């Protein structure tokens, strides 16, 4: 082989290498292509695809392409690399604050106003999950909400009235104690209640994460301390932390027939609105009830507390087709889009009017329990974690604090004061 030939081959190789991956799929027709990167996988991705297909059918000038099961960090990398999709969800809504604080998201306030949407139509705690520093940076498409679920057979087994769930938190501790069952060697067979998420307990106590005026953390708020102290009481009513933890480690997949609630390993749990449908699918014989969460005995004004989450959609600040991207988000707020998604994804509609929709409340047996969740979500005591630039860290710190309190390594005051010190420092760093 002559040298010039070798040069040619080497050159061609490097050119070829550098060209790989530069191809783009060409769109057919004149429709504006929108890339949507969403968090859902499996059955849930199919449910969202139905929504996308419906939108594409009714909006021929736009073609939404859904990419399923996308991790948040992939989206963040795409934003940094300046090639984000036109629409994306955040699996962890905790990222909203940090993305907004860095100017990575399109502010939706003007689009929201111009498109004739009315804030009054929105459920409490829906748009507030999308706001950072008073500005709208996301659109919510269905909410999550939490209520108490109890196994009626477990209640009967413990000699309790299966139609009477606990109403106050102290009552719940007593219930948890009575419902916990052990074998003759003292090993736990059934927990009274699955250890709940500490954030929900703090919310139920009327606790506070951030000062609404200054935006600074309030991790060691007196109500938060009370909440964690109660949390420890609840765990200890059922056994030592080590015992409960070891028992918990044996729980199977929640989305399936080994769900600890369905196999009778827990008699009560505080969980989300997706459960009634799962129960129908994975354990149709289990007799259960759904009710609002119990409230603290000493704070009757906190009746019907609940914890909210939601599916958050964002448009990146440097989006090439913001108008079309917004058209999709705007459409998700229509009655038909809300009903369509709520009936397949089993989320709570975020438009108040849609919660009255009869097709979501009547029909299959699980829908009666689902309706309880939709009513609970209307409660004035519904709370969610406020969007901050440090939400991920903040929540991790609270979970850690709860862990320390549960094992008795730290008192609730101590644990939350440590959290306060660390998250305040981090918040100041962001304000710099």
């Amino acid at each position, binding site marked *: 082989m002559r040298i010039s030939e070798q040069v040619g081959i080497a*050159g061609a*190789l*490097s050119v070829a*290498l550098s060209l790989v991956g530069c191809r783009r799929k060409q769109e057919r027709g004149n429709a504006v292509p929108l890339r949507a990167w969403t968090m859902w996988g499996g059955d849930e991705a199919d449910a969202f695809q139905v929504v996308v297909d419906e939108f594409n059918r009714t909006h021929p000038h736009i073609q939404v392409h859904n990419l399923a099961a996308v991790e948040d960090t992939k989206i963040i990398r795409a934003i940094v690399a300046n090639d984000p999709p036109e629409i994306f969800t955040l699996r962890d809504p905790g990222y909203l604050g940090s993305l907004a604080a860095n100017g990575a998201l399109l502010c939706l306030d003007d689009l929201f106003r111009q498109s004739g949407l009315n804030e009054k139509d929105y459920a409490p705690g829906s748009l507030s999950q999308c706001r950072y520093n008073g500005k709208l940076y996301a659109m919510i498409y269905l909410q999550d909400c939490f209520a108490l679920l109890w196994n009626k057979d477990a209640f009967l087994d413990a000699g309790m009235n299966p139609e009477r769930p606990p109403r106050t938190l102290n009552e719940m501790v007593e219930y948890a104690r009575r419902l916990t069952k052990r074998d003759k060697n003292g090993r736990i067979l059934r927990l009274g209640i699955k250890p709940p998420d500490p954030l929900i307990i703090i919310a139920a106590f009327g606790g506070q994460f951030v000062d609404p005026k200054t935006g600074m953390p309030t991790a060691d708020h007196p109500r938060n301390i009370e909440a964690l102290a109660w949390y420890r009481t609840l765990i200890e009513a059922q056994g030592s932390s080590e015992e409960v933890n070891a028992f918990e*480690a*044996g729980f199977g997949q929640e989305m399936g027939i080994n769900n600890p609630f369905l196999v009778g390993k827990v008699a009560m749990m505080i969980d989300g609105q997706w459960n009634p449908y799962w129960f129908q699918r994975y354990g149709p014989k289990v007799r259960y009830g759904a009710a609002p969460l119990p409230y603290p005995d000493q704070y009757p004004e906190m009746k019907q507390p609940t914890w909210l989450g939601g599916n958050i959609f964002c448009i990146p600040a440097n989006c090439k087709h913001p108008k079309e991207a917004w058209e999709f988000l705007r459409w998700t707020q229509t009655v038909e889009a809300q009903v369509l998604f709520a009936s397949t994804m089993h989320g709570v509609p975020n438009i108040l009017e849609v919660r009255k929709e009869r097709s979501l409340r009547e029909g299959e047996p699980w829908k009666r329990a689902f309706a309880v969740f939709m009513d609970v979500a209307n409660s004035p005591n519904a709370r969610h974690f406020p969007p901050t630039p440090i939400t*991920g860290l903040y929540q991790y710190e609270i979970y850690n604090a709860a862990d320390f309190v549960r*094992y008795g*390594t730290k008192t609730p005051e101590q644990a939350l004061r440590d959290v306060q010190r660390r998250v305040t420092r981090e918040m100041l760093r962001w304000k710099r």
Partner: protein
Amino acid sequence: MKRTRDRWRDLTGWLFVSPWLLGFLLFTLYPILASLYYSFCDYRVLSPPKWVGLSNYVALLTDRDYFLPSLGNTLFMLIELPLALVIGLAMALLLNHKIPGIGVFRTIYYLPSVMPVVAVAVLWLWVLNPQYGLLNAILTPVLAPLGLQPPGWLADPAWAKPAFIMMDLWAVGGSVVIYLASLQNVPAHLYEAAEIDGASAWHKTIHITLPMISPVIFYNLVMGVIWTFQYFTQTFIMTQGGPQNATLFYALYLFYNAFRDFRMGYACAMAWILFLLTLIATLIVFRTSARWVYYEGERR
């Protein structure tokens, strides 16, 4: 002056290595240097880095809540190295016997180390399950008569790290194969000579086998030190750092800083401290090696 033909030849050479060279410069050298710069910055990934001098390093070295405990957790895992050495070597010696079917045994003991770490982690989540796990199913009947409860393993802050060590020792086969290869290279005439002099099996092991394979022991030790400092996948999948931060290892905390909390500058500083620590630990091993590592053909 070089002839044109030589010039062409040089150019061709450069062009052929250019894919690798460009890859190295862009994707290895540049990120390494960039991370050094970022380690002196407040860098939130989504906005440009701001120079803050040494403050990341100062903050790290005074962090008693996470950084120092994560370092402590990682150092604890160094206990695994001597254990892996003894167990790996013992297994290699056993598998070095010339008996029928030895190939089957070698395959069986090597098998765990070819399994992907993620699969092993999920498998051991089951084995270590305090309620239904295989391990406690064996331990419970043994401990029950003594009035003892088996440990909660990953659910118990005191037992989580030992559980990880146990799991890793199960996959010690990788180093066994290396020991085995070097055992086969020990010249038989040395053993014959020793036997003529009346050496026992024990003496042969101590005075012939160990010195002859000491370079391989050394290699496994150095790799083990580096591997321990980078301990990540198992804890990321199995415990995410819990319970009570007992398994929050250095690399996991680094990952959290970089990708959960947007503290990339902090994470880069951690990476450089990790580099220095690994370097120091490796140097210590190298320094002591002159005393116990024997190379054939080398003069003392």
